[in-house]
């Protein structure tokens, strides 16, 4: 009798666990993101230590490996530098003219950038799933970072903040399947949407079939929708396919930034508007 009661109690507990697990799928994303980051936050200092230690050893090994090829590389580079110096002198006149134009553009851009405050963040962790692309950084609400802030590296787009804890945050990369970045080609100015494909690359979608696309074409953010600033370098076109009945081209894009090769990123915080209701 008692054994039967125990067995039915255990079955009831298992049933409750299964119902709770399934119900977790229906909780809104804003709440689940907060839960995830809050629960994972205590581990952030440990992740930071392990990350820095492993990067230190990895860089050390790479330096040792590079020593053996350093001498030959030095000779080749010396020749290249000599040729390039000659070219620079030829181009000096064009450079001077472009410099003047750049000064005018920079003055204009300075006024737009007044709204943005950058903060440097270390990458302390990566997504544990094979098909999702996100990273964990060591900045959060304490440093003024909020959901939706854009993350860049050297003026190239990396992703945007998808969840923030007290002192850590999660960044959804542009290579994540759920990431959609309004973009355009640098030369032809044709617009499209860059979507991640979970294999470290992206697809540019909704480019009409009649548009001519060359392979090394550069793609930048268009600024449409106001989520991502415009003119951020996204990547380069590596493959263009056209299915016979399709209205749009399939364009494969390799991101400018290889996330496995960098150790920190820049988070562009948006200044809060004055008199914003809380």
């Amino acid at each position, binding site marked *: 009798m008692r054994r039967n009661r125990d067995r039915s109690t*255990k079955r009831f507990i*298992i049933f409750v*666990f*299964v119902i709770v*697990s*399934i*119900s*977790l*799928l229906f*909780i809104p*994303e804003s709440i*689940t993101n907060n*839960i*995830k980051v809050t*629960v*994972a936050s205590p*581990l952030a200092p*440990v*992740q930071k230590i*392990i*990350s820095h230690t*492993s990067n230190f050893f*990895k860089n050390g090994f790479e330096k040792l490996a590079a020593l053996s090829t350093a001498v030959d590389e030095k000779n080749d580079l010396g020749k290249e530098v000599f040729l390039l110096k000659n070219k620079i002198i030829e181009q000096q006149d064009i450079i001077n003219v472009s410099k003047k134009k750049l000064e005018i553009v920079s003055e204009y851009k300075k006024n737009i950038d007044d709204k943005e405050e950058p903060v440097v963040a270390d990458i*302390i*962790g*990566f*997504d*544990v*799933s*094979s*098909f*999702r*692309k*996100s990273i*964990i950084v060591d900045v959060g609400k304490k440093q003024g970072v909020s959901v939706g802030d854009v993350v860049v590296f050297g003026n190239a787009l990396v992703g945007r903040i*998808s969840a923030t804890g007290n002192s850590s945050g*999660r960044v*959804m990369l542009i290579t*994540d*399947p*759920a990431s959609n970045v309004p973009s355009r080609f640098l030369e032809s100015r044709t617009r499209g949407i860059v*979507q*991640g*494909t*979970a*294999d*470290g690359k992206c*697809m540019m*979608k909704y480019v009409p079939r009649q548009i001519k696309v060359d392979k090394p074409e550069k793609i930048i953010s268009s600024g449409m929708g106001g989520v991502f600033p415009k003119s951020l370098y996204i990547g380069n076109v590596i493959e263009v396919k056209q299915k016979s009945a399709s209205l749009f081209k*399939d364009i494969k894009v390799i991101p400018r930034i290889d996330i*496995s090769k960098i150790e920190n990123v820049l988070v562009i915080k948006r200044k809060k508007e004055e008199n914003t209701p809380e």
Partner: protein
Amino acid sequence: MPWITIISVTVCISLIQTTLLRHISFLGIQPDLFIIFLVFHSLNANRERSFHASWVVGLTKDIFSEGPFGLNTVLFIIAGYIVSIIRGNIYGRHLATQISVTFIISIIYNLLYLCLLSMLITSAGLFSMAWECPLIAIYNSIIVLPVFWLFSRFYSSFGFPSSRRKF
């Protein structure tokens, strides 16, 4: 006590998976220690304990992953249940069994995850990623021997029954 052990192991796995495993990735593919631990626990524990471990491991993976909260929890419960069903009919101590079960469960889990994810996110590229599923399963199977040994040493050092006896 078993809850504390499961949670401790899961936290360690999370730290290793988020920080260190990317250094041994091949073609962007890295092993999934969560799946390996799930198979280890389900082969060595009774159905109830296996369910608890599956739930905790799945929930932890959800916390450290972008995406729908609860998806990995449900999939890990299913995977753990499958292993606990077949556990009685196979010899779980043999290396070949451990490798083949890990391989099969990895493929099932990854394919299910990909299917559910492509329903939730309308992305053209997700089904083309199906080729990664067998590669991930092969990578998991390759590291089964040292990882299983580490887990069994960990359990025995805490005074739990050794891998020779089921717990």
